[in-house]
């Protein structure tokens, strides 16, 4: 008797945590973040500051004149912010977990079915959409969706609704994502 597994993704080198355990652990980290800092977890606060920093380094005149990125450069070093430390921690935590679980391996996920060029093109297009959208919503899945909903913010739940509706629709229209 074989137990069929969902065949779409390559099985991980070692099993992931069960959803309930991962959910409680993520909830605990999120709760601690609110208690210790008064705000939640994030991601694009950092990529926005990194963009402003890169812009200042490469195109200083344009960046300083830009109403959006320029405003980040007014208060001292643009990367000097809590979110930069938090993202540094995310990379360290991800590395530690992946290394301990033997899940660190160079690869282009999804290249086998989509082809290398198509997969990377989709990755950059997806990144552009997400980077653009996160500036309109003033946050991303972590900052608005997860953290905003944890404080029962209306913005958090509206974000999650729009995020999942668009994701389901676009997934149908573009071949179902990474496989």
């Amino acid at each position, binding site marked *: 008797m074989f137990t069929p*597994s*969902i*065949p779409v993704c390559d099985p991980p080198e070692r099993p*992931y945590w069960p*959803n309930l355990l*991962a959910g409680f652990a993520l*909830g*605990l980290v999120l709760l*601690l973040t609110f*208690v210790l800092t008064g705000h*939640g977890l994030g*991601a694009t606060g950092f*990529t*926005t500051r990194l963009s402003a920093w890169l812009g200042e380094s490469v195109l200083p005149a344009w960046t300083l004149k830009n109403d*959006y990125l320029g405003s980040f450069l007014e208060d001292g070093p643009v990367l000097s912010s809590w979110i930069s*430390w*938090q*993202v*540094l921690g995310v990379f*360290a*935590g991800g590395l530690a*977990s*992946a290394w301990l679980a033997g*899940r660190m391996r160079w*690869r282009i*996920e999804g290249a086998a079915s989509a082809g290398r060029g198509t997969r990377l093109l*989709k*990755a*950059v297009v*997806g*990144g*552009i*959409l*997400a*980077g*653009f*959208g*996160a*500036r*309109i*919503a003033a946050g*991303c*899945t*972590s900052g*608005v969706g997860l953290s*905003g909903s*944890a404080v*029962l913010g209306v913005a958090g739940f*509206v*974000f*999650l*609704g*729009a995020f999942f*509706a*668009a*994701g389901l629709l*676009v*997934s149908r229209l573009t071949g*179902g*994502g990474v496989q």
Partner: protein
Amino acid sequence: MSNALDLSAPVSGILLGFGFGFVLERAGFGSGCKLTAQFRLTDWSVFKVMFTAIVFAAVGLYALELGGLVDASRMYVPSPYLWAIAAGGAAIGAGFAVGGYCPGTAMVGITTGRVDAMVFFIGLLVGTFAFASLFPWLEPLTTAGELTKGDRLPQLLGLPEWLVLAILVGAAIGVFYLGGWFERRARSTPHALETQSSHH
């Protein structure tokens, strides 16, 4: 009194970020395949983990406030610019479906050696520059649809906080049942078996 020796931001940022990144990787959220399986409705880990975390943190904050340990009114709540949030959330959902990640999970994908996650991350920066270039035209959208009734669900719905939390707990349990049903169905479809047997 602020001085260069204030290490509270680096220490709390790195420690809490470490926990965040560690748990996301343990959940399998460094994998674009596992993440986008949520939108194929074959793996509901994203919904289940997010809902559990939201409910745990929300109930925890409520309990700590009842115990007088935190002042929940001082917690940051995102501004309810509903059109801005919906438009941005939809763009991020579309980017997730096409690219395989959202911004935070792309960072975790990078730590597992996924080159596609690195490319997604570069896209995030390109998208930020695109937004900044168009900011004069987009600025009105970033504050569109402001909700004036209150920025939290209890005020909006006129319900006590404990009842909103109870409804959320029920919804989370519902997501686990619904997701389990879809996952069992995905495992027994002809497509799944066909792909399975092609490995032999």
